[in-house]
Structure formats: C-alpha cells, structure tokens
C-alpha cells in the first residue's frame, strides 16, 4: 500500500479519538503518529501495560503489536490474564510474548492461524484502529496483576 494512502487512513481514524478519551479510559497516549500508537493502560492497583502498535501498511496489513513496561522496554514475560489474548509465547517468528487475537499481525502470521488471514477481517466491524485498541484494553482489564 502506498504510504500516503496508509497514512491518510490512519490519521482519519485516530483523528476521531475524542480529546478526553485517554483520561476516561485510563490510557496514557505516548505516541499517536503514523505509523505508531504507543498506549499505556493504567488502572488503580494494576501494573501498567504499554502497548505499541505499528500500523505500517495499514490497512493492507494488520498492525504489529509489542508489549512493553512503563519504561518502554519489551516484555519477555507477561502477567496472567484469563482471556488468552496475552500469550506468553514465545511467538515462532518474534520469539516474544504476543497478542493472540485477530487484528494483530502476530496472530495472522502464527502457524496456528494461517487459515485466518487478515484479509478475512480487514474492513469489518470490530477491526478498525480504535476497535482493535479497545478490544485489547478490555482484555487487559480482565486481568488482575
């Protein structure tokens, strides 16, 4: 996909985020600039989790996700989470914990999900930028650590 088109799609969608959204959700938006959303999930009594999504080639490709601590360091292990979205890995390609959910590149390139390519989800309800971010946040909220 041409970078200008990808950038335009990205900026149109993130431009709709209300200014107060992060405060309402307990997010710290470290970066929202094409092609990256770097969002830290926070909640009282919880260890924050920082999610970095790389939207290069959006929406021809699903965003690549990496999980980090508050300092921005890539996590090599994950706290338990009942949803199964946060897979301790290691991912066969990245060798790290990963987001095991449709809409994330590491899911679609995982050998277990090669029969579920991103093209099957692209453009469908629940798979725009904000919805992908929201679903991961809600999965994180189900955890306790």
């Amino acid at each position, binding site marked *: 996909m041409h970078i200008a088109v990808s950038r335009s799609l990205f900026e149109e*969608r993130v431009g*709709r*985020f*209300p200014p*107060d*959204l992060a405060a*309402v*959700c*307990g997010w710290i938006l470290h970066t929202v600039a094409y092609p990256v959303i770097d969002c830290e999930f926070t*909640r009282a009594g919880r260890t924050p989790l920082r999610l970095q999504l790389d939207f290069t080639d959006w929406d021809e490709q699903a965003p690549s996700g990496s999980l980090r601590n508050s300092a921005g360091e890539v996590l090599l292990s994950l706290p338990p989470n009942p*949803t*199964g*979205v*946060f*897979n301790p890995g290691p991912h066969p390609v990245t060798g790290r914990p990963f987001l*095991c*959910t*449709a*809409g994330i590149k590491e899911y679609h390139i995982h050998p*277990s*999900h090669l029969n579920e390519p991103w093209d099957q989800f692209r453009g469908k*309800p*629940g798979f*725009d*930028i*904000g*919805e992908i*971010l*929201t*679903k*991961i*946040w*809600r*999965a994180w*909220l*189900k955890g306790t650590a």
Partner: protein
Amino acid sequence: MESTTNPEALQAEVGRHVAPVLVSVYTTSGAYPRHGHEKVKPTEIVADFLREAAKALHLTDTSGWVATVDGREIDASRSFADNHLAGMVKIHWGPREGGGGR
C-alpha cells in the same frame, strides 16, 4: 402534595424531582455530545441514550459493544438509576474483548 399508590404515578413524581444525570459517551469514533454532557432523567434507559450517540457519531454497527463506567460494565437495557449512576457519568462504549485465539 397529593399522595398516590400508583407505581407509575410515583415513578413520574420521583422523576420530576430527582437530579438529572449528566451523561457523555466516549468511543474511539468520537464523543457524544461532542463537548460537555447531556442531562437525562435517571429513569432513562441507557440503551436509548446509546442509540442517540450511535446516530450522532454515525456508528453503523455496534452489535456486541459493551458500555462501561470507570471500568465497570453496566446493563444498557436498564435505566441509569438501575445501574446506580448519578451525577456526572462518563460512559465508554466499544467492542468487547476478543478471546484468545480470536
């Protein structure tokens, strides 16, 4: 004041005197209202308010979405009062988490 034992009349009487709920809805596609909040009766059904938000924000498919307040899921089929929501209420509305492997 006249007294009544009719439940509907009582509900209406209460509705006239209790403070309104000040509501705003947040989605990643925008906020409703765009600035500030709407005043609604505590007896208003949350889903009715969410329908207004969906229309204003041009949301075409909200099936499976969940409404939360301060991280707590609320029952949109019930009223604000039934959900113990009063004063200033900021609702986050969006898709439910997917399961692992999905």
